[in-house]
């Protein structure tokens, strides 16, 4: 993996991104549930871990143990990433439903409304991974839950701070946001401060799936590109090179 790009592990997407997601960028993964957004987030994180890039997961919608199970089923070596100190969890879900077990890789935050506590936990997790590594990845899944628990302006301020600090720490940050939950102006607000957006959508009439890239500096195409969901991973099938052949 080059110093400047993080390979996503999804071939067609890496070609579109001219090698991968720019390191140290903050980007949004946006789309409705169950059509590929979740697959992308997991595949990308595991790909980074395979390349030795530490990853900090901030989970607001499920206990970290669920994420751990899902990632283990994606990559049989997942446990070794944990034991090698590459994985940190900030679990913003479990305490609110009253189930927490001590885990050496996990920091709990009592409530999705306590954004300051998330920030402090993140700083602590960063201190642990940064000593030995140049880059790291931060995954915040999801902005949607934070926004529905507070409000867009509050989360926006939080993202401003988090994004700025992530950049100076040399981190790449992936924010996940659900479509169909927020008002259009809220969506634009958050898209606006990102370095890039990967957006997923479904055309129900033709029952086809499309993805699109915005921002990210130079890319091969900014059009909607067709993809398929194959065995839990994304297969970009749309032709995007054609546009270049005049």
């Amino acid at each position: 993996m080059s110093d400047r790009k993080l390979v996503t592990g999804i071939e067609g997407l890496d070609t579109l991104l001219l090698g991968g997601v720019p390191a140290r960028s903050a980007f949004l993964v946006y789309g409705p549930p169950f059509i590929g957004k979740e697959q992308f987030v997991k595949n990308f994180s595991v790909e980074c871990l395979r390349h030795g890039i530490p990853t900090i997961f901030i989970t607001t919608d499920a206990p970290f143990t669920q994420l751990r199970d899902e990632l283990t089923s994606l990559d049989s070596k997942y446990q070794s990433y944990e034991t090698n100190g590459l994985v940190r969890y900030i679990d913003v879900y479990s305490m609110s439903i009253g189930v927490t077990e001590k885990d050496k890789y996990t920091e709990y935050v009592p409530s999705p409304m306590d954004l300051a506590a998330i920030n402090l936990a993140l700083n602590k997790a960063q201190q642990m991974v940064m000593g030995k590594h140049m880059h790291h990845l931060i995954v915040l899944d999801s902005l949607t839950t934070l926004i529905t628990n507070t409000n867009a302006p509050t989360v926006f301020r939080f993202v401003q701070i988090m994004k700025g600090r992530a950049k100076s720490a040399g981190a790449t940050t992936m924010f996940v946001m659900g479509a169909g939950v927020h008002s259009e102006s809220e969506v634009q607000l958050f898209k606006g401060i990102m370095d890039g957006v990967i957006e997923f959508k479904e055309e129900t009439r033709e029952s086809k799936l499309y993805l699109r890239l915005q921002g990210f500096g130079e890319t091969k195409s900014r059009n909607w590109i067709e993809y398929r969901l194959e065995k839990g991973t994304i297969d970009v099938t749309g032709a995007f090179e054609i546009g270049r052949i005049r």
Partner: protein
Amino acid sequence: MVNTNIVVLDEVLGSIPGGSTVLFLTEPTVEGDPFVYQAFYENIAAGKEGVIVALSKPPQYLLREFEEYGWSLERYRSRVVFVDCYSMLIGAPSDAEFIVKHPNDIKEIIETLEKALDSVEGGILAIPALSTLVDYCGEQSFVENLEKLKEIFKKATTTFVSFILWPYDEKTIEKIKDVDCLINIKGIEQRVVFGEYFEVAKARWLENIENRSIMFKVIKPGGVRVYIPKIIVTGPFHSGKSTFIHTLSTRAVSVDRLGTTIALDHGHVEHAGVSADIFGTPGQERFDPLLRTLSLNAIGTIVMVDSTRQDTFDRSKAMWQEVWKTGMPVIFLANKQDEPGALPPEEIKEMMRLPEEIPILPCVAKDREHVLKAFEALVDLILHRKEEEK
């Protein structure tokens, strides 16, 4: 009399006049709430009554957090009144004395707060993370009601508030800063926040304020401690450096071979509201370059003298001269005072021809009382405490 019960901060502020609001203005990546907790708890423990507002978490979580710091509010539960601005947001039950039904209605919060303060006839008011209220009610509604809120604060004996500096409108922040006493809490940031400090920006009852930045650490249990990142202990071979560090430290490691320090001694001490890291230097001359490196970034030095070994006094003095150039506070310890034939400190000072202003104290490095006294003396020098302040 009301204090914050945070060392050094109390020395700067003195006792806080009645009706004052003390604001801890906090950068988002450092901890300000523990200042409010500590000030509140210590005053309650000292017999006062108080009101605490739960904004971003339920009261039972707040209680648990106090517990983690080693402060059992539960024990004084009859003197503490909770205002719960959280539970109704998530539809959870609450056994708080006062429950705000619509936490995004700032008027209801103000009314409830007033009732709560009346119920304890003043008392101490604590609002950790007041900024959460801006988030609940919106910036405009918050600003419009801020003066009213500040009026309510005056009903309390003292109000302790922390406010997190998210990127709010500058005007909002200016209005927030307009209180009796303002303490900034900041991070020393380089890629991540690796140090925290506070400084008193304003206290209406003081004519002038010393311009001082004080590093701190938040410790569980323990609370806010003034933090001294580096004290070095130097002195000749066999003078008692390792012994001193081990007696002083709550945890310590030595890299020894055959009982001699070949690399570093390192210890950590928590004492009298101060938290410090201590580093010992090897005594042998071949390690002098290491002493030079170690003294970089150090904030204070202890020079050990073996009071039974006149032949090593020159060596002690040479080691002192090595660090003296940096201008950092230094004290000498005339160690092994329990041994027959140990020379008294003043005599040693004379024999070494040390400048008058350099303190030299008697010491027995195996004795915790002696060692703590020496530590306190150095800390006083480091924190520029004057005699009359003690």
